Every structure is written in C-alpha cells, then in structure tokens.
C-alpha cells in the first residue's frame, strides 16, 4: 500500500520539478548553490510565519481598527464606521489583485511605478517565489494586500459621521491607485526612494505618513461635523475602543515583525521593540492626561498605544530596546499635543485624530530612525546619521507633497461627481439610518 502510494506520488513530484526546470537557466547558471536554491527555494518556517503575519495584519483592520474607530463615534454612527472599514477591505482587495500589486511591486525600469507585468496577477502561479526571499509569492501578495487594506482604513477616522458612502468608496479606490500603489513602489517595490536607501521597515512612510497627511487634507476639504468643536458628543463606547485597540496591538506584531519577511532574529527583535514602544507610549500618554486633566482615561491610554506603534513602525527594524523606549516616550508626548493643535488651533475636524496620531507618529519615527538606529543608542543601523537623515527627509518631503497633491485632486473629483457630504438632517439622524438603513442598538 505504502509502496503504491509512494509510486503514485513520485511522478507528480518529478513533474513539479520538471515544470520549474526551464526557469532555472533563466535565473542563473553561475554556481551549483544557486541552482539548488532555484529548484528548492521554499523555507517552510518562513512560509509558516508569513502566513501567520498576514492573518495578524488583516485582523488589525477586521475587526481591530473598525472597533477602535466605532467606539469613538456617536451611537447613531457606529455601524457606518464598521461598514466603512469592511467595505474598504473588500474594495482594496479587489483592486490589489487587479492593478495595485503590479503597480507597487512588479519590476520596472522606471523609478516611479511598477510595470504591468502582474496585472490581474498574471504570471503568478502556485510555484512563484517572492523575489529575493524563500516563501511563495502568493503569500507576499496577500501580506501586502492587508497593508493596502488598513492604510485607507486609517483615513476613515478623518471623515466619520458626515461623508457620503459613495464618496468614500470612490475616494478609496482613487487614493489607492494614485497614492498608495506608487508610494509603495517608491519605498518598497524597487523605486527611486528604495534605491536611495530609505529606511521604512513596515510603513511609517508608506502607511502612516500617506494616510495621516491625506486624512488631514480630506478633513479640511470636507469640513467639520455640525457643531464642531463646541457641541460634539462624547465617544459612545470607550470599552469598544479599548477592545479594538488591543487587537491592533496584537496585529501590529504581524505588521512589523512580518515585514522582516522571515522568521529569524530580526523578526524577534522587531517584535520586542514594537511592544516596548507601545507600552512606553501608553504610560506616557496616561501620565500626561493625569497631570493635565486630573484623571487618567481609557481612551487616552489606548490612543497613546497606537501612537507608540505608529512611531516605531518605520524604525522597528533598526532600533534596539533603548531606542524603542525613547521613541515610545516621544510618541506619547508629541502625539498627545498634536491632537490639541489640530483640533483647537488649526480647527480641523480630523475627527478621530488620524493625522495627530498616525501621521505625526509615522513621520517622527521615519526621521528619528536615523538617530535611534545608530549603535550609540543600541541600534543596528549600518548608516551614518546625517546622510541618512537627508534621505529620510527627502522621502518624507516627496511622499507628503505627492499625497497632498493627489488627495486634493481626488477630493475634487469626488466633490463634483458623487458629492462629499450627507445633508445636515441626515448627519443629525446618523449615518447608520440615513446611509445604511440599520440601527446599532435596539432596546426593547
């Protein structure tokens, strides 16, 4: 019986090897070691970790981010926020396999955007291996897809309680195509910033800076919620905020440590510094609130956590534990005051503080990695501070500028096609009823 099974199975393995054989000469003819690598390049440990990390990052959006944001709005808008996150996840997935993956990651001679080699995932098979790594490209596609899902998801916090659902979908689709995919190519896909040697392990630039800056501009162009800032209502469910935030914390290990694209010591250190920064930033924010408002609040401490995680994200591959403590501490302080500046000084209703927490955090981490990544601070960066600082600032300048210009154009397109806002009456009724025809809490 066993012999029969083995015999039946053997030709299949041979066949699988046969199909991959014609590719071998194309890859390399240089050394025997390379040939062996090309024939059996899969590492099951790395593959298993990347499968896991992908699940963790999707978990950040569904339901982590959705609950985090859902608890912060009024009770008549909670379903609309959950709906935004869910619909954006689906839309981003479809766009990712259609056009975004090839724009972000297909090799291209041009430094600005990937080629159309993988449009509609053409050329991707069960045997495709992630270029330069040892796990299947299908997993890399999925892993990166979850980043493309959460990034526009973050922007939801800027427009809650007032934006039309149709405008949200149109904005998201255009933003992913015009901002997310190109910037991902610049930084991670082999584009011009990648070539310059910019450091952004898991998306301080690609995810948090793009989303934060775009959110701020969108909130400004959309206008504030009716009654802002004097007559706003308090978050309807801080416990839901905490539950969602905790899911973000757990998922962030996949986000950062997964971005090492291997199950190794780097991933372990990345996970460690990620956790440290989150904890330190939470405590910092809590102490600030305690000192300034008199009471340490739950919404405050979990917001500090998100700030700490966003800040460590770009730096989590270069800093050590000491750098993580410093980054977490700065994240707690700077993001705390950024919230007040955006709402009270700039008078922009970036409703759930996307810019102040994610944008400011991501930008700060992207700059400070050039400092705290140095061996003097216990970091592992192999660079010199001043030139690296120049590269980081160049990258931020270019990405912020591009995000602003593209977001402006996209918002204008939405404004003159589907329209941006619901009516004031619908805003007071709440989007759950007016946009989605459902009610979140029925007490009978």
């Amino acid at each position, binding site marked *: 019986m066993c012999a029969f099974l083995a015999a039946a199975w053997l030709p299949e393995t041979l066949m699988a090897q046969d199909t991959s054989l014609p590719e071998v000469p194309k890859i390399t003819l240089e050394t025997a070691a390379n040939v062996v690598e090309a024939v059996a390049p899969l590492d099951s440990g790395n593959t298993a970790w990347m499968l896991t990390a992908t699940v963790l990052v999707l978990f950040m959006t569904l339901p982590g981010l959705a609950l985090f944001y859902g608890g912060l709005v009024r009770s008549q808008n909670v379903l609309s926020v959950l709906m935004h996150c869910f619909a954006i996840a689906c839309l981003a997935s479809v766009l990712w396999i259609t056009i975004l993956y090839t724009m972000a990651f297909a090799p291209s001679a041009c430094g600005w955007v990937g080629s159309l080699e993988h449009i509609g995932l053409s050329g991707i098979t069960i045997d495709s291996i992630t270029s330069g790594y040892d796990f299947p490209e299908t997993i890399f596609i999925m892993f990166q897809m979850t980043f493309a899902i959460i990034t526009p998801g973050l922007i939801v916090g800027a427009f809650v309680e007032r934006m039309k659902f149709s405008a949200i979908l149109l904005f998201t689709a255009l933003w992913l195509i015009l901002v997310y995919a190109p910037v991902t190519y610049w930084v991670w896909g082999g584009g011009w910033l990648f070539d310059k040697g910019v450091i952004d392990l898991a998306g301080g630039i690609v995810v948090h800076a793009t989303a934060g800056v775009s959110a701020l501009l969108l909130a400004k162009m959309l206008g504030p919620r009716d009654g802002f800032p004097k007559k706003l*209502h*308090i978050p309807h469910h801080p416990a839901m905020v905490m539950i969602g935030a905790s899911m973000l914390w757990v998922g962030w290990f996949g986000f950062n440590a997964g971005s090492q694209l291997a199950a190794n010591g780097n991933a372990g250190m990345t996970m460690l510094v990620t956790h440290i920064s989150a904890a330190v930033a939470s405590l910092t924010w809590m102490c600030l609130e305690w000192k300034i408002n008199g009471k340490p609040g739950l919404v405050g401490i979990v917001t500090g956590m998100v700030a700490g995680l966003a800040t460590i994200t770009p730096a989590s591959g270069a800093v050590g534990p000491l750098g993580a403590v410093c980054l977490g501490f700065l994240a707690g302080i700077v993001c705390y*005051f950024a919230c*007040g500046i955006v*709402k009270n000084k700039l008078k922009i209703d970036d409703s759930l503080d996307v810019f102040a927490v994610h944008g400011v955090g991501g930008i700060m981490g992207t700059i400070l990695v050039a400092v705290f990544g140095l061996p003097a601070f216990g970091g592992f960066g192999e660079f010199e501070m001043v030139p690296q600082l120049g590269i980081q600032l160049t990258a931020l300048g270019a990405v912020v500028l591009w995000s602003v210009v593209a977001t402006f154009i996209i918002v204008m397109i939405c404004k003159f096609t589907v329209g941006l806002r619901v009516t004031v009456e619908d805003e007071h009724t709440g989007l759950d009823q007016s946009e989605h025809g459902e009610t979140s809490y029925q007490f009978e």
Partner: protein
Amino acid sequence: MKLIKAIVKPFKLDDVKEALAEVGIAGLTVTEVKGFGRQKGHTEIYRGSEYTVDFLPKTMIETVVDDDAVEQAVAAIVKAAKTGKIGDGKVFVIPIESAIRIRTEETDGEAL
C-alpha cells in the same frame, strides 16, 4: 391622594425604595431620565478636546399615596436620597383625582 415625583441620583434608587417600604408604601414606578438643574452638566476630556455633557442621567420615582402618608413618604425619600452634594435632585407633590386597580376595580384609597 397625592402623586410624589422624586428625581434622584441613580445610585440612590435602592436606598429610596427601602426607605419607602419602611414607611409602608406598597408600590412605585421608576423611569431612567436625563436632565439638568442648577448643577448644569459636566465636561469630559478626550484626547485633549473638551466635550460638554448637558443632560445628566437621573432616576425618577413616582408613587401615589394617601394624603395622610405624604409627609412621612417625602421625608423618607429626602433622607434616603441626600448626599449633601450638588445634583441630589428634587421631590414634587401633585394632587391626584382618582385611582383604579384594574384587576379588582377597587377605587381611590383602596386601589393604592
């Protein structure tokens, strides 16, 4: 007969209920309400932004008693609901024309 309408702090409901039972009040109706008096609302601060809460949650207790029991019942409520701090609430006494117990169709004093 009089209707006693007491608006008290929600956490005082149990104390008031027990105090009324001690003076022989047989039944009451409770409603969760919101409102403000001289206390006004309060503010809460989230992420550095102040939110004003205009209407505070209170509990409204309604009970109908015979005229000769009014004084005792009101005193019991006031004693039980008092904390001495702002926002303790108010008690109103309103005349009632008639009462009927639905099951037996008894009226007025017998219906209470």
